C-alpha cells in the first residue's frame, strides 16, 4: 500500500518537492534552528514507515485583520497570481496544496478566513483542529500587528494548547524598504517571540519569500505529523495485551484479530 503511493509523483508539482529542511527567515524569531529533519523522521521516511501521514491533510489556518493580504498571500502561493483589486473574503475559503517531502506525499489544507468582523462568527468555526496558525498583518499598518494578539488568542482558544505551530507574517513587504522595514520587522519579531511564533516578511505582489515561507510551514507540520504518528504507533503497540502475554501451544502467538483488539483498546 505504501509503495503504491509513490507512483503518484506527477500530481505533485516540481516546485512542491522538499528534500532538505527549509531554513527560517530570521534566527531571531523562529520555531527551531536546526537545518535537517529529525533523525527519526528521516529514517522513517527512508524506510517508508510513515504510516498514514502521506494520506492525511494538515490544517493551516490564516487569520488577521481585513485587507492585510491573507487571500493574496494564499493565491500567490497556490495559483501564482496577484489581483490588484480588493475583494473581501466571505466567511472562509480554502486551498489544498500537495507537497512531496523527503519522498513522502504530504498535503496542506490552507484555510483563508475573512478578516471582516461580521464574518468572525462563521470563520471562527473553522479554527478547530489546526496544526498551523498563521497570523498575518500589514507591515505598513502597525495597528494590524497589534491586532494579531487578539486573532491568535481566538484561534488558539479552539485548539489544544501547544498543539499548533504559530507563524507571524508581515505582508506587503514590497511597500516598505530600508529603515522603515527594519523598524517594522524589529517590532514584529519582538511580538513573535512573545507569542512563541516564527516571523516572516513576505510580499504577495512580488512573490518574495512566499514559497520559502510555505515550504517551511509544510516541513515543520510534516515533521510533527510523522513524529506524532510514530509515537502513536509505538504507544499503541505497548498498550493492552497484544497477545504476547499468552502463548498457547499449537497456536500462533499473534493473530490479526488480537492485534485489532489491541488497537481497539487504545482508543
Amino acid at each position, binding site marked *: 500500500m505504501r509503495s*503504491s*503511493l509513490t*507512483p*503518484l509523483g*506527477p500530481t505533485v508539482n516540481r516546485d512542491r518537492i522538499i528534500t532538505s529542511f527549509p531554513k527560517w527567515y530570521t534566527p531571531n524569531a523562529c520555531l527551531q534552528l536546526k537545518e535537517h529533519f529529525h533523525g527519526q523522521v528521516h529514517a522513517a521516511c527512508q524506510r517508508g514507515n510513515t504510516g498514514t501521514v502521506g*494520506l492525511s491533510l494538515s490544517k493551516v489556518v490564516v487569520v488577521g485583520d481585513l485587507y492585510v493580504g491573507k487571500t493574496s498571500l494564499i493565491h500567490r502561493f497556490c495559483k501564482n497570481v496577484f489581483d490588484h483589486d480588493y475583494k473581501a473574503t466571505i466567511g472562509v475559503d480554502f486551498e*489544498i496544496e500537495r507537497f512531496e517531502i523527503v519522498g513522502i506525499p504530504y498535503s496542506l489544507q490552507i484555510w483563508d478566513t475573512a478578516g471582516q468582523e461580521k464574518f468572525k462568527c462563521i470563520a471562527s468555526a473553522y479554527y*478547530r*483542529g489546526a496544526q498551523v496558525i498563521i497570523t498575518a498583518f500589514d507591515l505598513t499598518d502597525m495597528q494590524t500587528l497589534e491586532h494579531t494578539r487578539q486573532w491568535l488568542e481566538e484561534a488558539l482558544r479552539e485548539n489544544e494548547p501547544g498543539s499548533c505551530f504559530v507563524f507571524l507574517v508581515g505582508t506587503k513587504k514590497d511597500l516598505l524598504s530600508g529603515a522603515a522595514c527594519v523598524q517594522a520587522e524589529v517590532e514584529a519579531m519582538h511580538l513573535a517571540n512573545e507569542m512563541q511564533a516564527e516571523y516572516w516578511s513576505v510580499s504577495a505582489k512580488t512573490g518574495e519569500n512566499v514559497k520559502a515561507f510555505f515550504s517551511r510551514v509544510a516541513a515543520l507540520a510534516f515533521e510533527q505529523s510523522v513524529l506524532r504518528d510514530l509515537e502513536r504507533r509505538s504507544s499503541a503497540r505497548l498498550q493492552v495485551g497484544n497477545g504476547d502475554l499468552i502463548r498457547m501451544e499449537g497456536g500462533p502467538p499473534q493473530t490479526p484479530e488480537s492485534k485489532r483488539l489491541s488497537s481497539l483498546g487504545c*482508543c
Partner: protein
Amino acid sequence: MEEDRGPALPAESALEKNVAELTVMDVYDIASLVGHEFERVIDQHGCEAIARLMPKVVRVLEILEVLVSRHHVAPELDELRLELDRLRLERMDRIEKERKHQKELELVEDVWRGEAQDLLSQIAQLQEENKQLLTNLSHKDVSFSEEEFQKHEGMSERERQVMKKLKEVVDKQRDEIRAKDRELGLKNEDIEALQQQQTRLMKINHDLRHRITVVEAQGKSLIEQKVELEAELQTREQEMGSLRAELGKLRERLPRGHSENGEEEPETEPGGEECVSEADKAAMDPKDPNRPRFTLQELRDVLHERNELKSKVFLLQEELAYYKSEEIEEESRILQPPPMAHPRLSPQPESGIKRLFSFFSRDKKRLANAQRIVHIQESCGQWANSHRDDGYTEQGQEALQHL
C-alpha cells in the same frame, strides 16, 4: 733374703718331714741349707777343703729333686682313677634309670595305642553312621525339600520383578506428576493473563457501551429536534402561505407604484419580517438593493456547500491530472527509450502489449488514488460539522488500518 731369713725354719721342717710327703720345694730348701753349711766351711777352711765334695752334693740334690718330682705325680693319678670310678658308677645308675623310663614309656604307649584304636573304631562307626544318614538325607531331599527350595527362590525372583515393575511405575508416575505440575503452572499463568485481558476487554466493552448509550441519547435528542424543527417548518410554511395570500391581497389594493418591490419580494424577502418586527423594518431600508438578505445560518450553509463543491473540484482536478499524467506516461513509454524527466513531450499512441503491461502499475496507482480521495472526502466532511471531528478521524484511521 729368703735364704737369710727362712733357711733355718723351712730347711729344718723339710728335713723333719715324712719322706712320702717331700716336695720339690722342700728339696730346694734342703739345698739352700746345704749351701749355707758349705759357706761356713769355706769361711773357716777355704775353698779347697770342699772343692771335691761340692759337685757330688749338687749331684745328689739334683737326683733328689728328680725323684721328689716323680713321686709327686702319683697321687694325682690316684685321684683321677677314683673320679673315673665314681663317674662309671654314676653312668650305670643313669642307664638303669633310663631303662626304667623306657619301660614306663612303653607302658604308657601301650595304653595310648589302645585308646587310639578305640577312638579310630569309634570314628569309623560314626562315619558309617554319617554315611547312612547322608544317604537317608539325600533321599529325603530329593523327595521334599528341593522342591520347596526351588519354590522359595522362584517366589523371591517374581517378587523382585514385581518390585522392579512397581518401581518403574512409581518413577513414571512421579515424572508424570511433575510434568502435570509444570503444565498446571503454565495453565495458571495463562489463566491469569487471560483474566487480565478479560478485565481489559471488559473495561473496553464498558467504555464502548457507555459511548453507545451516549451516542444513542444524542441520536434520540437529534431526532426529537429534527421532528420539532420539521413541525416548526411546517407551521412556518403555513404561516408564510397565509401571509403571502395576505400580501397578494394588500398588493392588489395598493396602487402599482412599488415596481422594484414587486420584483424582489417573491424571490427572497421573507414575508414574516415585515410583520414580525417594526424595528428591523426600520433598520433595513427595503428599497436598498444592497441590504442584507441572508441569515447567518443561510450563509453558513452556502459556505459549507461551496466548500464541499470546491473539495470535489479539487479531487476531480487531481483525478484529471492523474489520468492525464498516466496517459502521457503510457504514451511516453512507447517512445523508446522513455525520457522519464519530460513525459509531457512525447505524446504517441500506445501499443496493445504496452497497455497490457501497464495494467498492473495503473491498477496500483488507482488504488492509491482512491485511498487518497476517500480520505479527502472524509476530511471535507469535518468542515461543517466540527463537533463530529473526532468520530470522523477515528473512523478514517480505522479504515486506513484495515486497508
